[in-house]
């Protein structure tokens, strides 16, 4: 059932008179708690759309609806809405307001008039989430671009938004940090936050998003699942995009009968399972939910996991690994890497946050349902 959290209806917007519309009659519906990607070429209007969704700009005509009600653009209403709908800009320099890291991260929560110790706790948690705890007293200007990007992410996390809009969240980040940002996005989604993301990395959005909206010359030209869009070569070309690699390879292999076309593989390990056609029996994926203070070393010893490949996934799992100094094989992309291990016949154990269990098992479920391998799942509670 449709449950839109943010909608635009016939929105038009231009920056200056006598220039073309940057948004030209955009009607779009963003569903509550659906992982949503906004795609399009440079200059298609994505960032402008975001500023309209966040009420930073007012449409020249048309309406923006939040939870079904049109935005009123009165200061009080806008402030309330912005405490729930946060935006993370592409360029961190556009959103650092205060000189010291911890002050900057506290900016949002303080504006929300939260009690002091709550602000403090949120700053702590947010800085840990982005791996920047040790920089809390640093001047923001002395940080590198990637570090500043993390600080701005901490700033929006500290506001605990209900809707988070992320404009190119991984651009300029190294591969590991990009991976952590995607993990944070997944965790927010699993915690009930609606996450909307734009990215030029079509492989990344393909593996993550459930629904895509494609912008072209200020219009929304497609809304729906990714595959029907990427199947239409002309539309993809006109939109300035390229089909994701997993999609291209699956199309190639299915066109000559090596594999069935569906189910569509969206990640490395789904793709590997589908074409690997393994004769060996797959291993067991142990998924162990952990909390902040869990002792991972003890969990490994008590369960006899000592010889297994290990991975972590999620915020609490990261904290637990940090405090127990456990040696972990896959600190990044834990679910994918552990599932790959199982495919090649070994067992693997993944320590993850309780809310992340569904995400952690997604690839194994895909593989088992598709009949590509039979990975045993051992999920502890």
């Amino acid at each position: 059932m449709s449950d839109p959290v943010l909608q635009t209806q016939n929105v038009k917007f231009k920056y200056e008179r006598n220039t073309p519309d940057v948004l030209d009659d955009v009607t779009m519906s963003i569903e509550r708690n659906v992982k949503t990607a906004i795609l399009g070429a440079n200059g298609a209007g994505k960032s402008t759309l975001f500023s309209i969704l966040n009420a930073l700009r007012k449409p020249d005509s048309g309406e923006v609806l939040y939870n079904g009600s049109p935005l009123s653009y009165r200061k009080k209403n806008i402030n309330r809405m912005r405490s729930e709908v946060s935006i993370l800009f592409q360029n961190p320099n556009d959103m650092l307001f205060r000189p010291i890291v911890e002050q900057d991260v506290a900016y949002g929560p303080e504006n929300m008039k939260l009690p002091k110790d709550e602000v403090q706790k949120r700053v702590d948690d947010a800085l840990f989430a982005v791996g920047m705890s040790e920089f809390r007293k640093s001047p923001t200007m002395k940080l590198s671009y990637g570090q500043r990007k993390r600080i701005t992410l901490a700033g929006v996390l500290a506001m605990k938004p209900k809707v988070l809009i992320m404009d190119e969240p991984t651009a300029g980040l190294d591969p590991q940090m990009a991976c952590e940002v995607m993990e944070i996005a997944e965790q927010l989604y699993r915690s009930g936050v609606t996450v909307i993301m734009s990215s030029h990395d079509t492989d990344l959005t393909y593996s993550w998003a459930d629904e895509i909206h494609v912008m072209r010359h200020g219009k929304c030209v497609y809304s729906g699942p990714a595959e029907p869009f990427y199947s239409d070569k002309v539309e993809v070309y006109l939109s300035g995009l390229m089909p994701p690699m997993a999609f291209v390879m699956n199309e190639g292999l299915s066109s000559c009968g090596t594999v069935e076309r569906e189910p569509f593989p969206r990640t490395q390990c789904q793709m590997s399972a589908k074409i690997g056609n393994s004769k060996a029996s797959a291993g067991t994926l142990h998924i162990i939910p952990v909390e902040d203070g869990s002792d991972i070393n003890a969990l490994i010893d008590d369960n006899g996991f000592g010889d297994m490949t290990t991975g972590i996934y999620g915020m609490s799992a990261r904290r637990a690994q940090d405090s127990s100094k456990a040696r972990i094989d896959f600190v990044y992309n834990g679910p994918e890497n552990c599932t790959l291990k199982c495919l090649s016949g070994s067992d693997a154990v993944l320590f993850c946050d309780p809310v992340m269990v569904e995400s952690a098992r997604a690839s194994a479920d895909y593989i088992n349902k598709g009949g590509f391998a039979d990975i045993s799942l051992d999920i502890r509670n």
Partner: protein
Amino acid sequence: MHHPGLPKVLDGFDLEVEEGSRVGILGANGAGKTTLFYTLTGVYKPQEGEVLFRGQPIQYTADGLTEVRSKVSVVLQNPDEQMFCTLVEEDVAFSPLNIGMDRDEVEVRIDKALRDVRMSEYRKRPLQQLSGGQRKRVAIAGALAVDPEVMIMDEPTAGLDPQSSMEVMELAEKLHLRGVTVLISTHDIDLAYGWADRINVLRNGRKVYSGNSEDFYSDPENVHLCGLLPPSTFNMNREVSSMRGLSPAPYPHNSCEFLAKFGDKCNAGRIFCVPYKEGTGLSERHAEAAREAGPEAKIGVYGPDSRNALNGERIDFYFNGIDSCFSEAVLGRDSVLIYDEIFDTTVREQAEALRTLGADVRLEAVR
């Protein structure tokens, strides 16, 4: 290299770049990549050690630096850091004029460079009115206008949409084929894996690896410490090879090689090759090739000149034409590939790489 009172940004750093090679520079945020590039072009002078260009130490005098900069161009990650002028054409002219090129020659260079990055129609426009992606292309045009012998690009595809990224990589390949040494730093490990002959990995201001990609990615501990992740093609090849009981080598680097290694073996299709020379007609040859290849054959393009010369002809793969047409061939289907003639070498090398993976793709010349 370091700032007084701060840790060294580059520390005991030795690097050798082979003339004419495609070099990837990898490392986490803050590893020292950008500082390295500034040092290589003489913008920063090392506090200790030397930078040699073709065996000679760089002279940090006006003449010495002009000499380096007439041969070595750099495109910074953030285009705004290297734009000094108001109009597009002035900005592209900046470096050529700076190294003392005469005005007529500069005009020719501006034309050519802007055409290469598909920005000709913006020649008289103020830079301020351009989008980030467009400014990036102007910055690349400015570097091309010097006609450099070494091209250094810091995150050339960051912030660009997928098609613009493909165009930038086509340009990099074109420079390579003209004999230019190309250095690219990028966080896009899949891109570097498909492109570079050799990678240099930086970590905390030191070079910790120099060599081919496979040896580096085969050492997960080191990859992890360097803030990197293995490319998806590398990962999938390792896993699927092990599931199928195959050796990981030969390593596929792109889709067509991957399909050749793991697809059902079949008789490879033919590629009807149309190398395009600027200024010649393309429509007739397109029609001829399409006739020879048959109505089912897909048609792909590679290279800015060919793409510009098209005029409404049917095309299936506007970008990534080489990989796409070879994928078709590997899957047993004929196709037509139109490319700028300089890419002849790239096409032949791709056919050769596929042969080692067991796919014998026939290249048919279209007269």
